[in-house]
């Protein structure tokens, strides 16, 4: 078995991994290795041929492949080693990586630091328990996207899409443009789960019928999907008897959520936040295992790829610094806790002294949509409010980022936890 020692290993070459590779190099790491199981870098963005990427980083509205192209150019220019068609089988807490590829066989990589950038995976049918038959013709949205855009095949002609997340809506448009018919998009929640702009340009533009507060209650067809039975749901998301409707369809696309992919992380002893499904991280994106960092959808699922790359950049920079100079000090960390109407926060821990270097960004999602002005408050465990911010609206589909300004460093001296509350502002 070949062995190889390197400074920084990055697992996954999607938008987080590519950004991490570049910044690790910039932080002074000599030997940076970017590993991906696909035959080219870019990850899932290669099949996301639609636009909407890059507005923050490139100040341009790019398609997925274009975003990859510009990042891959930077990766090339920064002399990062790229191993594609390579699967990481195992990561140990000592940062040893076992990776295989047809070309190199099995290689044991010893890395001074590691960035986890494996992204996320789609929630399958089993996870949402749709009863009925088990025919062919039931796919997750990402699988259909790959089939249509990369492999060049349409799985069917008449589609029902479950879930109004961005991928679901984008696939509704994509299928329509390729001559398929979207019979219905159904969403179990009483509101859209994706971005409004996608509702406008993917659903409204093509007159695709979308039903909120509905779900699929039965899959019909012994060998191939023949129809899908949907029903209205009550406030508890339980189907209401008597509201069933059976829609003939040969393909059901499931777009029912993404789950951070952390099997490797868990192997290495990385602790996972049950609220995000991703590792607990601190302000440098370091996990509980020293030298193992994480970024992007592996930490929590983002709605904008630019933010994924920004997180990758931060994790890569931290991993690069760590590789150059093992910083093993353990400093005081403040725990950030989701408070009123907040689902989760990243990072979960932060070092107040990091504010000496500049403001720190934190990201969170709300549990329900607020279409009017809201107040975000940051409250210490001493019940003192350290920061307040007003937002025009807050929606679960859009991640919110706020700063912890340098100026509050003094008021954090005895604080152990900070909780974030989001509340409606009456008569704003």
């Amino acid at each position, binding site marked *: 078995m070949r062995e190889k020692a390197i400074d920084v290993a990055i697992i996954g070459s999607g938008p987080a991994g590519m950004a991490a590779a570049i910044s690790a190099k910039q932080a002074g790491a000599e030997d940076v290795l970017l590993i991906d199981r696909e035959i080219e870098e870019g990850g899932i963005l290669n099949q996301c*041929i639609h636009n909407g990427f890059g507005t923050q980083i490139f100040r341009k509205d790019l398609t997925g492949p274009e975003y990859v192209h510009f990042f891959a150019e930077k990766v090339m220019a920064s002399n990062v080693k790229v191993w594609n068609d390579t699967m990481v089988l195992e990561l140990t807490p000592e940062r040893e990586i076992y990776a295989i590829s047809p070309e190199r066989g099995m290689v044991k990589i010893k890395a001074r630091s590691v960035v986890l950038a494996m992204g996320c995976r789609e929630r399958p049918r089993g996870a949402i328990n749709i009863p009925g038959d088990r025919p062919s013709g039931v796919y997750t949205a990402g699988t259909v996207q790959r089939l249509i*855009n990369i492999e060049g095949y349409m799985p069917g002609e008449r589609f029902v899409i479950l879930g109004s997340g961005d991928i679901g809506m984008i696939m509704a448009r994509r299928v329509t443009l*390729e001559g398929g018919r979207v019979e219905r998009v159904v969403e179990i929640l009483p509101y859209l789960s994706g971005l409004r702009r996608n509702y*406008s340009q993917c659903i409204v533009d093509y007159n695709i019928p979308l039903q909120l507060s509905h779900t699929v209650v039965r899959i019909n067809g012994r060998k191939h999907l023949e129809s899908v039975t949907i029903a209205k749901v009550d406030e508890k998301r339980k189907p209401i008897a008597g509201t069933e409707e059976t829609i003939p369809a040969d393909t059901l696309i499931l777009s029912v959520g993404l789950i951070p992919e952390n099997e490797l992380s868990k192997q290495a002893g990385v602790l996972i936040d049950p609220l995000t499904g991703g590792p607990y991280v601190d302000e440098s994106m370091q996990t509980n295992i020293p030298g193992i960092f994480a970024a992007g959808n592996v930490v929590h699922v983002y709605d*904008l790829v630019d933010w994924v790359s920004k997180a990758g950049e931060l994790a890569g920079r931290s991993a690069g610094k760590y590789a150059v100079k093992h910083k093993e000090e353990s400093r005081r960390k403040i725990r950030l806790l989701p408070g009123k109407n907040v689902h989760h926060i990243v990072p979960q821990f932060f070092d107040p002294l990091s504010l000496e270097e500049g403001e720190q960004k934190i990201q969170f999602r709300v549990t329900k949509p607020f279409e009017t002005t809201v107040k975000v408050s940051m409250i210490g465990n001493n019940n003192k409010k350290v920061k307040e911010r007003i937002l025009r609206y807050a929606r679960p589909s859009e991640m919110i980022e706020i700063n912890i300004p340098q100026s509050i460093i003094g008021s954090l001296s005895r604080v152990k936890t900070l909780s974030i509350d989001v509340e409606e502002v009456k008569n704003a």
Partner: protein
Amino acid sequence: MPEKEEITKLICIMCPMGCELKVLHKGKDVLKVEGNGCPLGIKFAKEELTNPKRVIITTVQVEGGLYPLVPVRSEKPVPKSVFFKILEELRKVKVKAPLKFHQVVLKNAMNTGVNIITTRALPKA
């Protein structure tokens, strides 16, 4: 008949924010835009009411490439009125690998003056 003032609700698609616009207009004359987070919202509202445009994004067939399809886009948004016609044209296009990044696969699509270009490079199989 003189046109009446009316309000049309739109969702701005200029960026992922998706601002909900309230557009006060008289026919195609936009009088006032509310709800926009930036000036792009006003531009969008005006265009949407006069000559709505969309960027075309799809794939075209490739001969001898690493993949059978290459993703493409229109360099600029094209009028919705010719959107599907261009799409039909593109179904007939078949290009040969290797392909360069932003290589033109269809020039001046439906006389819009807009080219259709690849959004990735594609090597031979």
